[in-house]
């Protein structure tokens, strides 16, 4: 395949959005790690210098990705998956611990995070399994195996501990739904989350009363409108109430204090100002500081390199997980909404690209990419602006981190390669 033809067939809109995000991200990393004493942006001793190096590496990776045969990815997805699982297992023996998490291999010049590779591999493997001619997602057994593909890396990652990354794999369940898993499952999960949160906010009693009222309403109206059987509905309600009771138990007896604090901060459960102040200074410090930095930005922001809170490193982890708060302080609402719009546009474009694939593997891989990018974007920005509890995962293409940028790039450009090949495939 000649380079000329790929340049014609690649989806340039996605490429432009990718480049824009990488550029904006780097500018903000530069600002977050800027200090007066450093002069050159190519100083690889600095974080922004290193990031610039990895952007270069990523560009090389893009060329390689596009140069390979599209069928390569489908063929080798199982092998890639196996390698990444082995790498995750190897962490238990050879892993390097950074900030309490044993998630890295020390390769000397940089640290490799195999969970990043595993994301790409799992997306490929899941697509491969689901697109297999023998797989029927309506079958329980096949549903089980599909989930197994997701759960194996996730379960290996949880004890690192890196629950944030593990969550990314669960998000890939969305691909299975797209391919026909009954929405019933999703409904159950959503209901469980809803009951969990409302129980924490309002207590079991109110949740039970509310469910009871819903039941009464359901029984009164059932003959006219619904055709749902009575017994499963009632038993679902009973289970929900029991679940609500167990939530209280788990929250108070199984969770550690720091988890409880995160939830009470997120759901604004704590009303006592003295305790709230304490939470702000301890567990909620990051969120509080990042919200304050974003608020201080206003509509137009303080300007590039003018963010005093950014300069003073008031927001911890600002160049990695909290990079979005730099955008907030220095570029204001204009900057933050631009970034949100770019991500939304990218994701929607990817949905469009996935849907136009004729090859099921490409489509399912596309959904895998969307799931991964979406969950990162959703949780990261949600956390930084104080809408979600603190879960440490990076913002794709933005956050500082070599393996992160490299594998997000691979993830995206494999998709673009598959897309550029769509007319040839399906033969």
């Amino acid at each position, binding site marked *: 395949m000649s380079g000329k033809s790929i340049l014609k067939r690649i989806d340039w809109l996605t490429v432009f959005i990718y480049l824009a995000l990488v550029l904006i991200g780097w500018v903000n990393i530069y600002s977050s790690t800027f200090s007066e004493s450093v002069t050159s942006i190519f100083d690889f001793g600095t974080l922004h210098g290193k990031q610039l190096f990895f952007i270069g590496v990523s560009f090389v990776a893009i060329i390689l990705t596009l140069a390979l045969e599209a069928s390569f990815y489908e063929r080798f997805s199982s092998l890639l998956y196996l390698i990444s699982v082995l790498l995750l297992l190897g962490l238990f023996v050879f892993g390097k611990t950074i900030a309490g998490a044993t998630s890295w291999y020390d390769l000397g010049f940089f640290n490799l995070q195999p969970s990043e590779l595993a994301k790409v591999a799992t997306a490929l493997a899941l697509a491969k399994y689901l697109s297999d001619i023998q797989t029927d997602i309506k079958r329980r057994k096949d549903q089980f195996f599909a989930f197994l593909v997701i759960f194996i890396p996730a379960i290996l990652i949880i004890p690192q501990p890196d629950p944030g990354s593990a969550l990314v794999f669960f998000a890939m369940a969305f691909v299975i739904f797209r391919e026909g898993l009954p929405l019933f499952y999703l409904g159950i999960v959503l209901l469980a989350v809803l009951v969990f949160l409302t129980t924490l906010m309002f207590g079991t009693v109110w949740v039970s009363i509310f469910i009871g009222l819903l039941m009464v309403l359901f029984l009164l109206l059932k003959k006219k409108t619904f055709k749902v059987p009575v017994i499963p509905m009632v038993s679902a309600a009973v289970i929900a109430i029991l679940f609500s009771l167990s939530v209280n138990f788990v929250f108070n007896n199984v969770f550690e204090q720091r988890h409880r604090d995160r939830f009470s901060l997120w759901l604004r459960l704590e009303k006592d100002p003295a305790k709230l102040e304490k939470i702000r200074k301890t567990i909620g410090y990051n969120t509080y500081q990042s919200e304050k930095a974003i608020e201080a930005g206003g509509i137009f922001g303080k300007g590039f390199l003018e963010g*005093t809170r950014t300069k003073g490193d008031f927001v911890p982890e600002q160049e990695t997980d909290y990079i979005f708060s730099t955008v907030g302080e220095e570029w204001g609402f204009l900057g933050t909404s631009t970034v949100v719009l770019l991500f939304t546009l990218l994701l929607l474009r990817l949905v469009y690209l996935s849907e136009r694939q004729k090859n099921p593997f490409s489509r399912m891989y596309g959904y895998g990419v969307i799931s991964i990018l979406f969950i990162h974007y959703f949780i990261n920005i949600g956390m930084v602006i104080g809408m979600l509890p603190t879960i440490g995962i990076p913002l794709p293409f933005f956050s500082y981190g070599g393996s992160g940028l490299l594998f997000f790039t691979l993830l995206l450009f494999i998709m673009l390669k598959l897309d550029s090949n769509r007319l040839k495939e399906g033969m």
Partner: protein
Amino acid sequence: MRKILLSSIIIIIGITFIGRLSYLQIFSFSPDQLLDDPAIKAIYDYPERGYIYDRYGKLLVGNDPAYDVMVIPREVKAIDTLEFCSLLGMEKEQFLKKLKKARIYSPRLPSVLVHQLSKQDYARLQEKMRRYPGFYIQKRSLRYYDTNAAANVLGYISEVNERDLAKNPNYVQGELTGRTGVEKVYEDTLRGRKGIQYIQKDRFNRDIGKYKDGSLDVEPEQGKEITITIDKELQEYGERLMHGKWGGIVAIEPSSGEILTMISGPTYDPSLLVGRKRSRNYSKLHYDSISKPTFDRSISFEKSPGSPFKTINALIALQEGAITPSTTFTCHHGFYIGRNKKGCHCGGGTKNLNNGIYESCNAYFVGVYKKIFEQFPSNSEAMDAWEKHVRSFGLGAYLGSDLHTGRKGSVPNSRMYNKWYGKGDKRWSATTTYSNAIGQGEVNVTPLQLANMTAAIANRGYYITPHILKKIEGKDITNPDFIEPKYTTIDKKHFEPVIQGMADVYHKGTARWVQVPDIEIAGKTGTVENFMVIDSVRTQLTDNSVFVAFAPVDKPKIAIAVYIQNGYFGSRYAGHIASLLIEKYLKRKITRKDLEKKMLTRTLEREYAKPYSGKPFKINERDWSQDEIKNLTKNLQQ
């Protein structure tokens, strides 16, 4: 449906994020103010507060450097605690306790370990300080008073409180501001402007360089020194004379309106309100609710002026053509108001303007007052014309001086009497309001107003608003309010006969015992009836002693009003004190030592204790030898 689901979720999340961001950045946008920004530290460089000098350039208030030993707990390394404690002169336990307290306050921010070292200790410590990391010496500036007088004039400074901070954002916690007196009124001049350096901090509060390369930094500006109109020597002397007496004294230079002295008794040593002991001392003074040392009687004490006010009535009558200097009234040792006879101390007989003034005849002035009313078709018009004249002497309203507080006093008018007695000429008349004739009625004045009124007489028809500021940085003030004369409504020619009467007060009148050799003084005594509610009964106390005077008569250099509570005769305490102060001011020395000794050793404490004794007491005792306190030698020696 499944195809749309994902897209919808993406769009909904995008909208939610933008909603939340607009809430954070648009609706609850709180721009970081330079001083509130936690990432920026302002380092202040405090200039020295300006000095205050008296009218002759003598220092009144300066600054005293004080040295605090500060500690930044987390920078403290292992040191020889015992040696350091002996250097600081404190116990080891106390040292450790204070260090612990500082650590609890903040391990990163400086705390005061030892307050206000003496200069000797500072000199001893300074060289060795660098051996003790985490400790350093912070220089501060305290007020130093080169006088024990004039506390009410100078005022004091103290740390700003929440209210000051809310009112003026330029203040920072821990700064000092003037509270009363000159320190308050000329706060901005004296304070100068503090220098500010902005430092960018990180979240551990470490300095990481200048903010914006110091482009927003402010250079400190020295506080300006000011010269006030007070005569330090006169003020100190007056306060000694006032020892054990309550009341107010104000002396003014008539030609310029400069306040020469402003004494309030009882007073306190201004040094009491400096430094560490300030708040304890202040409470002690503030809660003395009987003698009220913090209440400035020279400017805030409103009382009936008494007989000195008769001079104003004489001037109004002359101006309105109600009398000539030779118009006479007969005094029958009193006068009749309806069927009631009111007494008069003047001795009786036929009175004209001259002896009416110097013998202070009540009957004469009630007659004059009635004559004024006869010049007008109605009582209301007479009353209001009278009011206008009185107010032109600066009575009944704020003078507009540059003093931090004061009172308006009061002057009655027809509106007030109409309200009291009802409208119409039949309801009230000159007879009803006759007390105004002798300064006992509805007229209330402060000693400052009384002095200013005297200055207006001395100037033969105008006054210059009394003021306390003379120079800033050696340059004379240019404020037209304190330069341009304010004219009274009385023509110049009418003043001479009244002033003659006032001069005769010294020659042959009520103050002939307190004459000053070689100085021609014009004055007027006042003995003011005085009431107080004791156990809900209105009880008469010993009269207030009042005296106004100016000298020399031809070219007045000083106009003075002395108001002594419960001093009885005008000439007894007030007259004595006024004459001593005039002599002191004009001659700079006292020749009449016996008179001086009398004032320095006699106090009115006995008089002031009477209403609180709970026993019946006599008032207006003729014999005043009991006022003498034998062992007041300290007062004499000063």
